[in-house]
């Protein structure tokens, strides 16, 4: 998912895609920043941190392996604020962690991960917050899986438009995305269940724990 520097910057089409990605990300980030208030801020930072670390979690897939992305979880909790959260996390990944993304592709990478996150937010936030246990779990799975799958229609055309020799990369991407989506779904589902048990206000959901018996003295 992290497109490195130099893959797209070789062709005019690729440069156009990079510029477009950066512009759209700037717009999304501006929109997201307006939604952040006092209460939202620690949430944004926490999910940004989780996203930053998630890329170090490796998922073996046969001969190759890939890493977690967690953009579904970020989107589910943050909505449009996923843009600044993912932007910061990707920026720090490209600086600190070798081989993850790059500075020139920062805008495009943010777009391909944050846009599905926002979509997932509007699709699944209601069942994840208000639904029962099973509904919340399924919503979490759906959010994680769909956010991963939706990155594909954004990344693959970008790679194909860059032209020569990237068809192989695009194909590989398709093959890897499906099992990764399932794993992302499971991780996001368990995170949603966990958050609802421990910190339901993170999801703006009511507490699941049974209410204690009212003690009335007459």
């Amino acid at each position: 998912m992290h497109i490195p520097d130099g893959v797209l910057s070789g062709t005019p089409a690729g440069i156009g895609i990079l510029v477009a990605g950066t512009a759209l990300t700037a717009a999304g980030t501006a929109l997201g920043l307006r939604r952040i208030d006092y209460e939202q801020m620690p949430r944004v930072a926490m999910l940004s941190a989780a996203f930053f670390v998630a890329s170090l979690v490796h998922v073996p897939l046969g001969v190759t392996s890939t890493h977690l992305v967690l953009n579904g979880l970020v989107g589910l909790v943050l909505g449009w604020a996923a843009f600044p959260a993912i932007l910061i996390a990707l920026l720090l990944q490209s600086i600190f962690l070798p081989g993850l993304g790059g500075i020139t592709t920062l805008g495009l990478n943010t777009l391909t991960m944050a846009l599905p996150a926002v979509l997932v937010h509007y699709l699944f936030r209601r069942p994840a917050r208000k639904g029962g246990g099973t509904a919340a779990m399924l919503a979490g799975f759906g959010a994680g899986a769909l956010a991963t799958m939706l990155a594909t229609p954004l990344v693959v055309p970008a790679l194909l438009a860059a032209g020569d020799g990237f068809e192989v990369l695009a194909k590989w991407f398709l093959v890897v995305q499906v099992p990764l989506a399932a794993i992302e779904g499971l991780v996001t589902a368990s995170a949603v269940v966990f958050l609802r048990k421990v910190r339901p206000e993170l999801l703006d959901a009511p507490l699941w724990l049974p209410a204690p018996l009212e003690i009335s003295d007459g």
Partner: protein
Amino acid sequence: MAKPGLCRVALAAAAFFAVLLGFPVLAGPAHAHQLSVFAVFQGKAIVGEAYFRGGTPVPNAAVTVLDSAGLTLGQTTTDAQGKFRFEPQWRCDHRLVLRAEGGHAAEFTVAAGELPSTLPAREIPEGKTLADKQPVPPGTPTLADKQPVPPDTPTLAGEQPVPPGGAAIVELSDRLEGVERQVAGLRKELARYEDKVRWHDVLGGLGCILGFMGLSFYFLGVRRRERLARRGG
């Protein structure tokens, strides 16, 4: 409403992050999808290897060799161990570009200074492509017309007559080769070390995020104070 106790929440959060942070440790060597290339000049050729970060070799991958201007000098392929070999024909920077699955690319440059001075310098007149100028096999004295060499002086590239202290020189060059190999090994280790994700990088990133959060709180606070002041006045 039974709010979960602070203790329980802290415990749960600690567990969550322990799992998240524990994974990379367990999965350390399987850090397999970012690529790296490393190469040095050894003996007569540039030898190198391509590996996924963490050390797994990249077999059967195409390595394109470019000069500093981006013109293709040649191409080679990695073997089953991810190793490759390229005989340079020019003394110039060699950029080795590896492209592999998943949109991942890696690059390594062997500087001109590493190559032996017996190779001809690369000079391409502007507007000409590589095809115009056939590579001259090493050993051909291309510089001869610029710097006329006295006929008696044996050139480096030509056949070297064995000087009187021949045995000593042979021994010395053997040792030199050994040192070269050791340096190559060290450089390889260094390149691998740089590729590794280290704890302080991860903690540094998390610290930065916390710092950004603090900064944002500050600006949010300024905005709120201004709003309150406006309302109050």
